[in-house]
Structures are given as C-alpha cells and as structure tokens.
C-alpha cells in the first residue's frame, strides 16, 4: 500500500526544520520525503491532503502507566491506547509499577499480549529493576530483555540500598540494558505531599526540599561513575539538580534525563485549595524551578519530555490532600500542554519535538521518532494553534484525573498514524 501525504508542513526534529513537503509512505515505512508532491502520483497511491497543517513524527512517551495487571478499572491497554492515539502518541513505553509489578518474563509476556490485542499504538513495556520493586533483589534482567523489556525501572521507588542498586547497575551494563531511576533522597522526601516553601507553610502540608532531588541525582551519578551503566533520570524538576546533570554529561557518563509535562507547565501554587488533581510525584515546584527546567529542555540538557501518565480513579483522589494518590493522566493533553512552551517562546517546534520524539527513540534504540526514509510511518498531524477549553469528560482514559480541566489550551491533534495506518482522526 502506498500513501502520499501532501499539502503539509513537515516538522523534522533531526534536521531542526519546519517546511512545506510531501511524504510518500509504502507498506508502513517512510519511502520518500519530497519538497513538493509529484504532479501525477501513481494510480495505486492514496493521496492524503493534510490541509496545510503540520506533520511530525509521532510522540514516544517514556513512562506511561497502564494499570494492567491489577487495576484495569483505572486504565486498560484499550483505553490508554485510544487516549494515546488521540494525543498523537504513537509509542507508549509503559511502566512496571502495576499490581503486581511487572518483574518476571511471564508477566511481561502477558502485558505484551494484552497490549498487542487492545492498543492501536505501539507499546513497549518496561520491567522492574528489582523484584516487586522492593529494592532487595534484581529481576531476571536477561530473560526480561529477551522477552522485550525496553528498560528497567522501579518507577517512583528509590532503591535505597546502594549495594543492591550498584549491583543491578553493573549487571544491567553487561547486558546493555537501560536503567531508569527516580532521583530523590528517600529520607528527606519521606511523607512529603508538596514542595517546601511559603505555599506549603501556609497550607500546613508536609513538604520536601527541592534539594532532595539533587541529593538523589548526586548519589546516582556517583554510582554511574562506579559502574558505567546506561542511566536515565525519569524526572528532573528542580534548578538545583541541573548543574550536577550537566557535569555528569560533560564527564562522559551515559546519562540522560527526562521531565514530566506537568512540571513544565504548572507550579506549586496551582495546588491552591488542596486540589488533589495537582498532586504529582515529585510534587510541583516553584515557578523559578519550572522555568529553569523548561530552559534546560530548550538547551538539550534535559533530553526527554514525557506525560508521566498516571491514571487514578475518583476514589483515590477525592481524599484529604496528604492521603490522596499522586499522579495525573497526560496522554491526551501532552501535545497541547507542550505547545505552551512554544507559544511562550521558550523553545521552537523542532526543539520541542526532539524532546518528545527523536530523543526517546534514540535513547531506546528505536527506528522511529524521525521522518527519514526507512523509518516507520508513525506520525501525527496537528494544528499547533487551534484553541479549545479542556473538558475532562471528553478524555478517552478510564481515569480522568487531569489538572488541565477547564483550562484554555492551544494545539489539536488532527490525525495519528501508526505504521501508515490511521489510528485516530479528529472529527
């Protein structure tokens, strides 16, 4: 099957360009990128007129929580996949912090099967680094890699025992496995619901100093120097952690860092009157931190933006703030929320797309994330400026715990293609 995408502006994060082009797709792969559409396409070619909108590589979202196994009522592969398609996410890299944790090849195979049956987008499951995410014994990293584990992470649990963590890193290095960690000093952050500061003091909520993140990162960097492992910090959200990250990269360690979209677009004050939909982990930071981190994405110091999609049902959110569960859904709001960074002129579109698509592909060794001949035709067509007011009732996720409910946003996904197949089309 051959498709010709015409009348579009092509967003190419690799070349750093946004320009009119046409894209020829054959059998799910990008076959040719042209400056203009041919006058007379071959008769067996389906021509897709993109209406002058932007065509970009689909988003690769590193760290999506789908609640299978265990809490399918919060999110299933079907609902998450539909949300992803509607959000322009063509690959979900899913988290193992399920009930039970994805820590054995058998569970991983179950998840892979469920994902293939139900989700219209690509799903790459990650596995736990330690059994039960308990930080005591490493999982069967080799078998899990054979079964398709994209990376190894205990998610928001820190492996506190440095001996266990250093051995897991050493073992992972020998297999070339990527380890993703949550840099946070567990002692300092224990029991915290918000970031310390004037707001936390006024609201009387237990708080953590942003320093806990730098301490966690410093520790992990020391262990990387020791072990030489491939490492990714899931979320760097504070200005204080940035110099350490910069130094580690300069010293040649195999380290990358990500940040969740909520930390790039919201700050600690958004919690206002104990609004639990704004409770995320790590907690939202001060505006100074938010800006510093957004600029670090623009400069490339922080490599990857993700949604940190974490579905929680109403029951786990409609509680006093300290008791309420952490996390927010983000698959469908990632693109319009990220467009805020472009509209605020913190970064341009190609820079944003490196963080959303190209860099995660590179880090995970995927062929996608770029518009290049031979790459899979995983693409999103979107209008970067279309305004709307988000109504959470319209979300496709089973859980609708978004902090953006009722907010004005700009940027609409018009269509999403996975291997050339249209998996979402806006009506």
């Amino acid at each position, binding site marked *: 099957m051959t498709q010709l995408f015409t009348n579009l502006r092509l967003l190419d994060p690799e070349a750093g360009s946004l320009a009119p082009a046409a894209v020829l797709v054959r059998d799910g792969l990008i076959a040719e990128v042209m400056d203009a559409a041919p006058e007379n396409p071959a008769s067996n070619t389906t021509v897709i007129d993109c209406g002058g909108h932007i065509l970009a590589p689909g988003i690769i979202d590193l760290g999506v929580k789908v609640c299978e196994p265990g809490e399918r009522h919060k999110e299933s592969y079907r609902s998450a996949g539909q949300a992803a398609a509607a959000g322009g996410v063509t690959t979900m890299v899913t988290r193992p912090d399920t009930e039970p944790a994805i820590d054995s090849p058998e569970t991983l195979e179950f998840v892979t099967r469920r994902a293939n049956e139900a989700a219209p987008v690509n799903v790459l499951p990650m596995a736990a680094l330690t059994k039960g995410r308990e930080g005591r014994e490493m999982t069967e990293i080799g078998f899990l890699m054979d079964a398709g584990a994209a990376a190894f992470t205990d998610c928001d649990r820190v492996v506190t025992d440095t001996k266990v963590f250093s051995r897991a890193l050493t073992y992972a290095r020998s297999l070339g496995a990527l380890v993703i960690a949550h840099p946070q000093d567990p002692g300092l952050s224990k029991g915290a619901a918000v970031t310390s500061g*004037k707001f936390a003091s006024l609201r*009387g909520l237990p708080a953590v100093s942003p320093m806990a993140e730098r301490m966690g990162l410093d520790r992990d960097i020391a262990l990387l120097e020791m072990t030489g492992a491939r490492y990714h910090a899931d979320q760097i959200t504070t200005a204080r952690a940035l110099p350490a990250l910069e130094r580690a990269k300069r010293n040649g360690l195999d380290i990358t860092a990500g940040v969740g979209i909520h930390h790039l677009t919201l700050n600690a004050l958004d919690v206002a009157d104990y609004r639990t939909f704004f409770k995320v982990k790590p907690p939202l930071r001060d505006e100074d931190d938010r800006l510093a981190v957004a600029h670090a994405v623009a400069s490339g110091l922080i490599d990857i933006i993700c949604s940190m999609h974490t579905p929680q049902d109403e029951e786990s959110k409609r509680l006093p703030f300290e008791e309420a569960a952490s996390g927010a859904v983000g698959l469908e709001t990632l693109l319009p929320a990220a467009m805020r960074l472009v509209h605020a002129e913190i970064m341009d579109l190609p820079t944003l797309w490196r963080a959303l698509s190209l860099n995660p592909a590179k880090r995970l060794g995927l062929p996608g994330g770029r518009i290049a001949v031979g790459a899979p035709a995983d693409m999103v067509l979107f209008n970067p400026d279309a305004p709307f007011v988000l109504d959470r009732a319209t979300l496709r996720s089973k859980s609708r715990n978004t902090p953006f409910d009722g907010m004005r946003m700009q940027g609409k996904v018009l269509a999403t293609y996975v291997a050339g197949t249209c998996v979402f089309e806006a009506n």
Partner: protein
Amino acid sequence: MSFAHRHLLGIEQLSQSDITTLLDLADRYADRNRQPNKHSDALRGLTQINMFFENSTRTQASFEIAGKRLGADVMNMAMQASSIKKGETLIDTAMTLNAMHPDLLVVRHPQSGAVDLLAQKVNCAVLNAGDGRHEHPTQALLDALTIRRAKGRLHRLSIAICGDIAHSRVARSNILLLGKMENRIRLVGPPTLMPSQIDQFGVEVFDDMKKGLEGVDVVMMLRLQKERMDGGFIPSEREYYHRYGLDAEKLAHASPDAIVMHPGPMNRGVEIDGTLADDINRSVIQDQVEMGVAVRMAAMDLLARNHMAAQPDSV
C-alpha cells in the same frame, strides 16, 4: 454588621471587618455568659453536629456548650471510633451526615485541608475546629478577643508566638489574624520547628527566646507534642525547657505588663513554668477558655443567620 461567609474554614478568608464583627458579637456573649441566665434562642430548632476525627476534650466541650447556650440540638460524634475505622471515606461520611439535614457542622480532622474538602460536599454551614497543621480559626479568634479585652486594643501590639510553629495550626491562624489586624508578630523557636520560608509571612523570626521576647506585649506559648520531643526535632525535653520554656527569667525581657497565653492543654515544665501559668497577674490562660465559648457562640450565630437566610421559605 455584615459577615458574608457560608463557612468558617480559616482566618485566611476573613477581612479585618469580618474579624471585628465577630469579636464584637463575641464580646456581648462573653458578658452574657457571666449572667445566671445564659440561654438564648438564636439557634433554636437547628441541629449542630460535632464531628471530631481527632481527640479533643476542650474544643469539643466548648463547641457543645456554645451550641447548647444558643438553643441548638447538639450531637457529638467521636469519629475515630466510628465508620472511618470501617473504611468509609470522608466524603461518604459527609454525604451520610448531610442527608440528616444538620444546620451546623463542627469538624476537626488530623489532615490539612480535610475540612475544606468536606465543606464542598455538604449543604450546611461548616466550622473548622482544626485541620491538620493548617488552621484553627476559632482558637485565633478567642486569642484575639482575650488580647483585646486584656490590652484594650487589637492593633499595633508586639506579639511573640513561641514554640512548635511548624506543626501548629494555632500558630498559622494567629499569624494570619494578628497580621490582618496590623500587629507586629515575632516567632520564637528552634529552627527545626519553624516552617520553611515563614519569614515571607511578614513576621520576624528568632531562635533566641530572650531576644524574641524583648519588649513584647503578648507572649503566646504553643503546646509541644510529646512525639516531637525525643531527638527528632529537638534533642530532649529538658534542653527544650532550658532554651524555650517560658519562665520568670525569660518573661522579664518582655514588656512589664505583658500577658501570657497558652492554647492548652499545657505541658507544665516543658514549654511553660507551672507557677507562671497560674500567675493571675500575668497569665490569661483561663480567660482564653472563657472567651472560647463566646467566640464559638458568635461564629455559629453569624453562620446560622446566613444559613437560614439562604434557605427557601419554610412551609
């Protein structure tokens, strides 16, 4: 006289004139409470439910007496012993109670923000009787009334709040109230018991108690919770008493006519010297308890009026 609030959730939402309105009415109730016939019909026919998710003898009794003196039907629910233990959520509890049509709900909860959450779900007036480390508005109001009666004014006073500020809802509500009424506020305590960036609240912070008390008109002591005494926040009880316990020597640095306050229950010999607490020339601790009933009567009276005004005409 205007008091345009549906609930009393915190001092944060009140204006200077709201506070004055409340204190003026409370002043009248305080005088009336000293008469043999203390009864009024302000809340006649209304149902008041006291829901305490955290132990409290004093505050609960104060709210109960206040409601009964105003003629309300008062019911106490000890929530620690009840359905919460059976796994019912706060919202379900609120909805259940709401179906019984109470008019006033007095709530204490160990979590900051829990009373705000509950207030969003019920149709009656809600009074915050203390939520976590957040606010305890009636305590701040009774402290304000006590100060106003003892000092003759509630502005341009120098007031020291001493002790465990970090974990204290009493401190937060008092900082807000006394700040709104344009007083100079000093916070005195070890840095481990100070909330972060508290200096941004328009207060002066001292870790030396003698310097902190220099020339102040009012000394407010806070209770130090037992569980905070052993090594976690402070080295020991005796070191705390030595450095931050209020005794005659430290009080000598305050203004000669400074009054001493404590929200109770006191730890004698931990945060305050027992003799000083009983010194009727300096201590107004008993007055605080007395004003507590009056302030709660005033608050419930004002909220009940708004609640009744918002009801459709009865049949």
